[in-house]
């Protein structure tokens, strides 16, 4: 906006703090909102990406180990079908020890009966102990599918042993360290966090810069309207919207003019009354 009259500090006239002191606070507010949204979005996206990876990765690991368990199960069940009792299958100990030797990540493989008593275990010291009732029930509940569980920092994958009668005779458990999965997905977590942080930094700056530009224009416009108002009211003249001024600015110019008109008119009226008053 441009004033026809002389310029002076409008703010002084209005008795307000300088417009400079509030400059940018609008942009600050909106920045806060936008950057929060950015943080939220990126964290959520990273979270989902990570968890998806984690679930695919751990289910892949689990399916591999359940395949190992399945191999053992087939061998054990074949022997069961020959009519031997589970606890008599001495060769099972050999089978599970061979499978464990193949993969250093396997912590233990154990075979237990329907009561949960461990009959064979790669950790021979554990033979004769009992597995938790949860695992016994899990084996009974899932007559064909593998089941998973966690135990402290170990992951467990198990399969039930089913005899010719279709009855669950016990189960096989394979334990592998949770740390194995954590190690596998840990790299991604670090990488994701780093990327997220970098992107957050860069785009926060961009967001803030963009908002300062956007609201800078708003605030310049407001400032210029404010100055015009002050000038016109304190010193007179006319507010003429700049070329390309929007309808609001035109209306504001009218307002300024009308205000000036009103103050002028009231002043004149006051003076006139004063004259009349003094005249008498």
């Amino acid at each position: 906006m441009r004033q026809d009259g002389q310029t002076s500090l409008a703010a002084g006239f209005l008795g307000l703090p300088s417009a400079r002191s509030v400059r940018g606070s609008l942009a600050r507010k909106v920045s806060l909102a936008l950057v929060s949204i950015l943080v939220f979005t990126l964290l959520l996206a990273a979270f989902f990406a990570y968890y998806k990876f984690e679930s695919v990765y751990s289910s892949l690991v689990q399916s591999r180990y359940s395949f190992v368990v399945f191999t053992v199960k087939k061998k054990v069940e074949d022997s069961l079908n020959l009519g031997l009792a589970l606890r008599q299958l001495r060769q099972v100990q050999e089978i599970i020890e061979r499978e464990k030797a193949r993969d250093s990540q396997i912590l233990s493989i154990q075979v237990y009966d329907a009561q949960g008593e461990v009959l064979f275990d790669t950790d021979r010291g554990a033979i004769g102990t009992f597995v938790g009732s949860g695992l016994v029930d899990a084996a009974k509940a899932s007559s064909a599918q593998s089941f998973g569980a966690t135990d402290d920092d170990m992951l467990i994958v198990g399969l039930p042993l089913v005899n010719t009668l279709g009855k669950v005779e016990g189960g096989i458990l394979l334990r592998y360290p949770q740390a194995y999965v954590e190690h596998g997905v840990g790299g991604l977590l670090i990488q994701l966090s780093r990327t997220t942080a970098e992107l957050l930094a860069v785009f926060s700056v961009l967001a803030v810069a963009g908002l300062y530009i956007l609201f800078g224009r708003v605030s310049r416009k407001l400032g210029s309207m404010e100055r015009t108002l002050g000038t016109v009211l304190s010193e007179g003249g006319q507010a003429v919207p700049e070329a390309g001024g929007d309808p609001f600015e035109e209306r504001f110019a009218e307002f300024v003019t009308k205000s000036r008109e009103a103050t002028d008119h009231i002043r004149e009226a006051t003076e006139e009354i004063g004259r009349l008053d003094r005249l008498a």
Partner: protein
Amino acid sequence: MKGALLRLAILGLAVVMLAGNAVAAEPAAKPYRIYMALWRGWEDAAQGFKDYFINQNIPVELIIRDAAQDKDKLKEFIAEAKQLKVDLVFTWGTTVTEEMLGRWDASDPQSYIRDIPAVFAIVSQPVGGVVPSLESSGRNITGTTYLVPMETQVNLIQSYRHITRLGVVYNPLERNSRVAIDELSAIGARSGFEVASAAVEVVDGKPLAASIAGKVAGLKAAGIDFLYIPPDTFLNVSRDILTGAALEQGIPSFAVGENAVVTSKAMFGGVYRYYTVGQLTAYKAEQILVHKIKPEAIPIDAPKRLSILINMPVVRHLKLYPPMKLLELAEIIDPAEGKRP
């Protein structure tokens, strides 16, 4: 393996306590008393029956009696079982079962065991004998069958190779053989194969083993692609001749009995092992004793899983190799590899 498992018949009174390591549930539970009436001594079915209770940690007290194929002893068994007030009676074989438990339509029920629940095993034709139907005995007994249904046998043969003509050499004196051939023909009509049968010659009222080879050759000429060996005492005795002839003619053979495959030259077979049947029978006993299910509510059936036997030397000779899946499921008999079940 047979030798390892087959125990000597235990005669006289033998009380076996099978407490096992009883778990928390019922540590001081009184063992169930089961009266086991056997026909030919202690064999695999009885062993499977007993082992089931050990494996399941069910405390039982087994009172084992062997009739040693003497029908007369069975009357004493009935009296003894009643007097001992046992919880359950186990009967082995058709004779023991029918003599002790009575036919389902018996007119003099008092002379059999009626109040004590009973399970039977190794009864070849329970329907129409001890029970009216397989769904329910309609009384205080249940049990197991041990013959592989014909349909299953045919499926097994078909899974080895597709057949268009199935050959059978049979003993005309054995009525059951005829029944089996009729049944096979009916299934063949449904699933698209023919049955070519040849009866063994009978001389002086006895089947002539020497005629077997010729019959097999005849069937070969008739274009059969598989030889079916029915369960028949005579054929079982002459199994080496029969399977040998088939092998010579290059015909693969399927046997319903274990012996033809394990100790002779039949190519493969499908059987329910007695041990498994014994276990299943024990499972039904468990239902009655532990889970308190009424025997008449427990259907009479066979084990779910068949034992498939493949005679590898014969396979190699015929160069007719089994499908991988069958190979995975089967028990391989291969003396050269030292592999015997």
